[in-house]
């Protein structure tokens, strides 16, 4: 029952790319409102542990996913309070919260390490699941995998096709101007970070509830930072984030598939593939015109609202 290299990579990319893509889309929304959250790793961990605990206690993975989302959003509200209301330094606040989350989640999850859960089961899509090459890889997965691309598209619509998105992006470009135009920058940033937290929480939840069905301290293992990096790679677009997550997930999958197939290259070199791919893409496309950093990421806003 050995599968093709392509199918193996695709299947693995779909799984490992999913949690990263949720988090990346969330971070795009946050950064569009003018806030960089280096604590995303912590948001994902909080989502992962609360999602796992609730799934273990209720036996219902969907309740677990919901709890993961709300927990991620709640945790992100602490960050929002620090950087929006208290105007703390974004980078320092994010990192501090990441370390806080590492400890907090280890305590919360302490008695849940090694607890078996049913978790989110695969739901094959009738018909599509039997397609050659891509059937098992893409259409025999869990519901969170199926919904991640629609969520990214929805995020794009939210940002570019709703007045809320327009207002939020205006805040991300220039808070002072947005404020002068009668918008409430702080409220909009809180909302953006709430949505970002929901998505980051789901990303972490997917890792613990669906993908690995285990909880382990620090299990996100840097996925949150990769998501922050992919936002730049994706030029702050949720649609391009899909490409980024697929590329990154695919590169991780390629190196594992190569090892499994007995490649004669050192595993240390293979381990570098995902990062080399990201670097190469950034070098090739880094200077494309129209790649606009939300200007607010560079400024400090002193007004209220």
């Amino acid at each position, binding site marked *: 029952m050995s599968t093709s290299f392509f199918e193996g990579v695709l299947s693995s990319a779909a799984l490992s790319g999913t949690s990263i893509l949720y988090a990346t889309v969330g971070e795009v929304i946050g950064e569009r409102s003018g806030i960089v959250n280096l604590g995303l790793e912590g948001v994902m961990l909080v989502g992962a542990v609360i999602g796992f605990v609730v799934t273990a206690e209720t036996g219902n993975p969907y309740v677990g996913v919901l709890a993961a989302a*709300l927990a991620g959003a709640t945790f992100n509200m602490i960050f929002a309070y620090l950087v929006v209301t208290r105007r703390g330094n974004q980078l320092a606040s994010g990192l501090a919260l990441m370390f806080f989350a590492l400890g907090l989640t280890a305590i919360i999850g302490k008695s849940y390490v*090694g607890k078996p859960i049913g978790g989110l089961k695969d739901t094959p899509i009738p018909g599509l699941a039997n397609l050659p090459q891509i059937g098992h890889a893409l259409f025999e997965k869990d519901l969170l995998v199926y919904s991640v691309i629609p969520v990214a598209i929805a995020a794009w619509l939210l940002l570019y096709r709703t007045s809320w998105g327009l207002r939020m992006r205006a805040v991300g470009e220039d808070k002072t101007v947005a404020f002068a135009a009668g918008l409430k920058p702080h409220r909009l940033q809180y909302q953006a970070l709430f949505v970002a937290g929901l998505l980051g929480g789901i990303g972490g939840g997917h890792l613990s509830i669906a993908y690995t069905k285990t909880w382990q301290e620090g299990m996100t293992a840097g996925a949150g930072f990769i998501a922050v990096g992919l936002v730049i790679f994706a030029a702050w677009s949720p649609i391009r984030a899909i490409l980024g997550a697929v590329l990154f997930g695919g590169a991780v999958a390629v190196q594992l598939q190569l090892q499994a197939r007995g490649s004669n290259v050192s595993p*240390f070199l293979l381990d570098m593939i995902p990062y080399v791919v990201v670097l190469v893409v950034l070098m090739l496309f880094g200077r494309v015109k129209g790649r606009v950093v939300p200007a607010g990421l560079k400024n400090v806003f002193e007004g209220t609202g």
Partner: protein
Amino acid sequence: MLNRFLKLVAWSMAGAAILAAAACAGSSSAPNAAAGADGHAPFTMGVIHVGSKTDAGYNQAHAEAAAVVQRNLPYVKVLEAENIAENADVSRVIENMISQGAKFIVPASFGYLDPGLDVASKHPDVMFDHPAGFKQADNFHTFWATSDQQSYALGIAAGKMTKTNKLGFIGGFKIPNVIDTINAFTLGARSVNPKAEMHVIFDNTWSDPGKEAASTNALADQGVDVITMIVDSPITIVQTAEQRGIYSVGFHSTEVQKYAPKGWISGIGFTWGGFLTREIQSIEKGTWKSNPKNLLGDLNTDMVTLAPWGPAVPNDVKTMVEAKIADFKAGKAQVFTGPVKDNKGSVKIPAGQKGDPSLVNTIDWFVEGVIGQGS
């Protein structure tokens, strides 16, 4: 609008707080026997874990050992700390345990070696036992147990039970004792099934459930139908293997079977409880310093054992494995018996010769049958 939004925030915060409180209430600390309850002089021992005590792996093996000490010597007070980083944190934890009266410390992680030695040099009256360390001092001994004989024997089970002739291994890092295990397992499998080949993935981390799940899937995609591993916690790999409908062989703790009720074959478990009990007794008697400074257990000691068989293992396979174990115990068989070729075709151990026991610490080549993995 703002009020509604703030309300939502407040509600979700309250919800998360309740969840967190429930989670904390669920965890309980291990009971410590009251020192000196039976008139015996009190003795305090400290064990530091790098991960969680319930990881069904490396850390759980050490935690179970502490529990065995507690059962054997009820007057001993066992202090345990989990999830301690391999840096100055562990030094502080050890100092803290010593200030609570600990006379015996088990810094149970490879990376605790240097910080442990450092603290030990300041406390000559406190004895240390470190797992798998390669440096010793007068009050700092090291211990481990060889497991390549068990790996060879379980390789026999894997070689007999595979239908695709493809076995898989997921390792944390490409280091000698991991290579040694892979080689022993492969030799065992090929001794009964010359067509068996071993596919190896190194994750370059001892603990990353996401990568472990992806590695298991990559091997299963490749047609591998028996999987084994050396990572800190085998839970994710064994669970994913079960989901994919393939067999698994565990490593570290004997408590992994529940994650793979169908596909479990067996596993290697390290059982340090008896050894640590004897260490405490010799500290009390004052003879500890004359113990071997680096103690390496094997099948003939109580430091390493096989996990119970899974339901899928046929009786003739069990008999073959157990017979091989008996041969190893009696010294009638050796894992590396020449001729042994590496996977590039050159003879590494000539016919008629046996492998040097120090290979476990130096080996950097794979035996014939291991696919790829250039250096």
